[in-house]
């Protein structure tokens, strides 16, 4: 955290640029001002507790929000410099599954139960590439092989119910990367899987990221996953970005009380204790108390909260090393100085 500031080399146009994204359902706005970039080839992680708006953010990039959702005017999602909302229906479809692939949390239900997995992979291929039925099938086998499904020649003809959860998630990954996307969005890809399978699947995603030179937007609950696989991390709370930075410095020295709370709240590995085993008290209150409140959404649960916090929404401070935080209280002088010099 000390020493001269080395600005990372940032390409002029990031692969994906999300700015001031706000998504509402009527008066309720579960995503209220989120912005981040995803650069070519990197893994950006988004963490945050349940209901903080991670999935909605991801779905909005894909144009897959439920029909009742509205993206507020002023929000911007640009992919390779193009505004997604301005795309024609056809171009948007070309983007989905073509340049951006997505995998979901629930592999058990994400595949069509009455189609073979081969057909489901081939379908994605033929949607975006002029392939014959046969060529698509052959390519599907290759893809299944790529995601390390054993015996892909036989497995192409299998139906989803014949595969385990981990295998199905691999099929989902094969579908998502079928057309060589620039960006893979993975919304909690391992949450529903066995612990032993989780690492394999994340490993696979990371290997494919390198081999196919795509970027990965990884949404997760799991700070351990972030630490191991992410290049940068965005922490979300109640529909806003509260902190952003590289995992190591961010975990070493969280600058937002929420992030701090997260880290202390997280069970240690050696405790052999899991938070689903019992209620954890570390962060008092819950995110659901946020609705309709002014000021910082975290204020009611925050030990450092002052009157100002409850009245105005804190601005995002840009600090060294691309570090950002939406709370002034924990920022130390050195951060400020560095930011000033920038």
């Amino acid at each position, binding site marked *: 955290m000390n020493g001269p500031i080395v600005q990372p080399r940032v390409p002029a146009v990031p692969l994906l640029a999300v700015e001031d994204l706000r998504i509402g359902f009527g008066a309720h706005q579960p995503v209220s001002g989120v912005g981040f970039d995803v650069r070519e080839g990197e893994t950006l992680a988004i963490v945050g507790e349940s209901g903080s708006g991670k999935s909605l953010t991801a779905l909005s990039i894909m144009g897959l929000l439920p029909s009742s959702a509205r993206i507020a005017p002023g929000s911007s999602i640009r992919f390779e410099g193009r505004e997604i909302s301005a795309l024609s229906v056809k171009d948007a479809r070309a983007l989905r599954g073509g340049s951006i692939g*997505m995998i979901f949390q629930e592999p058990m239900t*994400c595949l*069509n*139960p009455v189609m073979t997995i081969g057909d489901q992979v081939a379908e994605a291929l033929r949607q975006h590439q002029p392939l014959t039925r046969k060529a698509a099938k052959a390519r599907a086998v290759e893809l299944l092989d790529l995601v390390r499904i054993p015996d892909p020649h036989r497995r192409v003809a299998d139906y989803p119910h014949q595969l385990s959860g981990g295998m199905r998630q691999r099929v989902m990954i094969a579908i998502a990367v079928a057309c060589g996307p620039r960006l893979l969005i993975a919304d909690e890809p391992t949450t529903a899987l066995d612990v032993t399978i989780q690492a394999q699947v994340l490993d696979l995603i990371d290997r494919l990221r390198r081999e196919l030179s795509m970027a990965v937007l990884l949404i997760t609950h799991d700070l351990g996953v972030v630490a191991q696989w992410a290049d940068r991390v965005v922490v979300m709370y109640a529909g806003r970005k509260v902190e952003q930075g590289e995992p190591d410095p961010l975990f070493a020295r969280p600058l937002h009380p929420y992030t701090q709370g997260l880290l202390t709240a997280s069970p240690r590995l050696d405790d052999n204790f899991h938070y689903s085993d019992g209620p954890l008290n570390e962060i008092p209150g819950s995110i659901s108390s946020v609705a309709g409140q002014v000021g910082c959404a975290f204020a009611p649960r925050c030990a450092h909260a002052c009157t100002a916090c409850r009245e105005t929404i804190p601005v995002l401070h840009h600090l060294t090393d691309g570090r950002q935080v939406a709370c002034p209280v924990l920022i130390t002088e050195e951060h400020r100085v560095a930011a000033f010099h920038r």
Partner: protein
Amino acid sequence: MPTALGIVIISFLLLQFAPGDAVDVLAGEAGSATAEGMAEMRARYGLDQPVLTQLWAYLSNLVHGNLGWSPRYNMPVTQLIWDRVPESLVLTGAALVLALIVGIGLGAVMAAREGRLTDRLLSVLSLVFYSVPAFWIGLMLIVLFSIKLGWLPSGGAGTIGSSATGVAALLDKLRYMVLPTISLSLFYIAIYARLARVSMIEAKGQDFVRTARAKGLSERRILFRHVLRNALLPVTTVAGMHVGGMLGGSVVIETIYGWPGLGRLAYEAVMGRDFTVLLGILLFSSLLVIVANALVDVLHSILDPRVGGSDAA
């Protein structure tokens, strides 16, 4: 198979309960039968044996595809039934197909417009279809299309004495089929429409539909390849259960339209108190239901790989 046996026994028991027997009826009709002559006829038809013997005879006859002899028609019941089966199958088959197509179509429209005016109006319409007595709608269709408009024939199964062949004959037949088919199918249209609506709405919300969207597929392709195929599974299951209902419904419809099928035969048998024929029909149509259920099972295992398939992993 035990089901079939159960049905056989039930129909035999019903036959025993039937008041009098065909010989009585025949004698009554002829008006001149002597007691001796009647006894002789009973002996000829085996009607003077003890019940268990008769059951045994009945069963062994059945095994040989023999449903008994109709003294009234002076014909084997099996023969009588076989003669009528094609017309019945044509009518019920057409009604089932029509009901499935129109019902699923309506259901798809309702699901697409869920909660809106179209959905509500069609829901009420389907409930009306569900509530209308088929024989009454049959009569009203005759009033409108045969009597008032003169577009379609009011009864029969083809122009009598027509020498048309090929396409012309087929068209002629179709003209006679329109009204009975509609009357018979209306009720089932309502059922399939409501069922298809619910299962389409359900299927649309499934995760794999979101996956299909994420692949960039067109809405049309998503609807046909992903939503519809899954939504139709419950509909096909139910449709198989309706074969019996339709055979029953055709009793009234065939009577109204003079359609020479099993239903009309049943009506004639009731009126003539010919219980051998009546129970033969009950038995035969039950067998048809069993066959239909088996067919649906096969169809279902083709449409849904999760059924009866091997599970791995």
